[in-house]
């Protein structure tokens, strides 16, 4: 499951070009270009307003963001709701201090081969997917965090 950063960027740019552009009323709707984050560790988290474990994952994602953003962690929450109003309602109740992007058509989710909701992918500084977890289990928070820390501590190849 390791893909080069170049391929990743190309696919993401293509995916977002093919996907409906998020409406300008929505927060953080700009295109996602991974090359912006070269050299950082990226966590891509797929979520939806109707997904119950997502409510548990948001506080944790916020905590990770607070703790490791200065060390080079970027979290991108990709919303898969069909109805943008539902996503907005969810974000009112569970505000995110990390980036949110919208993928209502599921193009990005397919690209990442999302198997369960929520799904989180840890991409290291070289653009390779080094960890992913299906679902969000409160009891595994430490394991999830360890995967992020491992990626942060890894030296880049450049």
């Amino acid at each position: 499951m390791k893909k080069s950063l170049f391929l990743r960027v190309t696919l993401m740019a293509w995916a977002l070009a093919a996907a409906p552009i998020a409406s300008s009323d929505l927060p953080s709707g700009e295109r996602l270009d991974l090359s912006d984050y070269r050299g950082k560790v990226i966590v891509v988290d797929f979520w939806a307003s109707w997904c119950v474990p997502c409510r548990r994952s948001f506080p944790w994602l916020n905590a990770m963001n607070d703790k490791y953003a200065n060390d080079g962690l970027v979290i991108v929450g990709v919303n898969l709701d069909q109805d943008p109003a539902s996503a907005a309602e969810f974000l009112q109740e569970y505000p995110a201090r990390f980036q949110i992007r919208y993928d209502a058509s599921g193009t990005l989710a397919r690209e990442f081969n999302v198997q369960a909701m929520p799904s989180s992918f840890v991409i290291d500084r070289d653009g390779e997917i080094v960890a992913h977890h299906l679902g969000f289990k409160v009891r595994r928070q430490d394991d999830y965090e360890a995967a992020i820390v491992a990626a942060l501590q890894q030296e880049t190849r450049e």
Partner: protein
Amino acid sequence: MKRTVGIAAVTTLLCAGCSSMGVEPWERDILAKDEMQLTTDEIEAATDDHIYFSKEASSGGRGFGGGGCGCN
């Protein structure tokens, strides 16, 4: 009786064989709704089972499991 088991077996196999049927994990918004759960109201279902069991010669039959948001 044999016929019943036969029908049940065929139905189960047919459904189990539908391994390509379904939706993507992120397309379960409607299935996650309360009103789309197989048993929407536990007490109402238990009440009906109890009443009909007391007044008729058949009982139960309902299954469980599956559907919903499919999360975690």
